[in-house]
């Protein structure tokens, strides 16, 4: 079945530094990838999505590029802010059902 791997469980950074959160996936279908962000006691909210190979997608200062050759969709930001502290999930959708498979998530903590 489909799977998503996020290698970092916890990332702690100082404000203003760049960040990259890793996401790799496995699927036999054409991939549709998402990044969701979840703040404490809130619902997960869509941050980015992509199904186009080698095309960068951006939102709220975050960006990611789907690379089908390496089955990756890493999330990046050039300068993190305190408000970016949250739980980040990478997710993979089956193109025929819309079923979403999530990675275990990465907690990003940004310090002053």
């Amino acid at each position, binding site marked *: 079945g489909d799977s998503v791997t996020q290698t970092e469980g916890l990332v702690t950074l100082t404000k203003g530094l760049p960040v990259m959160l890793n996401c790799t996936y496995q699927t036999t279908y054409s991939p549709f990838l998402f990044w969701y962000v979840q703040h404490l006691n809130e619902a997960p*909210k869509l941050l980015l999505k992509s199904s186009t190979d080698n095309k960068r997608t951006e939102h709220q200062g975050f960006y990611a590029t789907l690379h089908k050759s390496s089955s990756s969709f890493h999330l990046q930001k050039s300068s993190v802010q305190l408000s970016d502290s949250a739980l980040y999930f990478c997710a993979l959708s089956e193109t025929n059902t*819309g*079923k979403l498979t999530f990675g275990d998530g990465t907690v990003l903590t940004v310090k002053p």
Partner: protein
Amino acid sequence: EAAVTQSPRNKVAVTGGKVTLSCNQTNNHNNMYWYRQDTGHGLRLIHYSYGAGSTEKGDIPDGYKASRPSQENFSLILELATPSQTSVYFCASGDAPGQGDNQAPLFGEGTRLSVL
């Protein structure tokens, strides 16, 4: 505005009791989902549905039933609740990629369930 509404938001149940979690969406989405979220496991799919009258097993369906009586409503039923089902439950609605404009499921605010 697109919305997914869950009720109740918090629930305390006794072991062996029946629990029903409700979800309503006003987005006219075909697909609806139930996930549970536990520390260290991320979001795991319990049941999902393609439309009224349909339910499908997700990755962890044991101990749960689902019901989709209409396009708007999707319920999760715990017939005999156990402490291991203590968790936060999220409902979501969306369309499969290529089948609609909303190609990323929209989540409700969650239900915090404690089974004592």
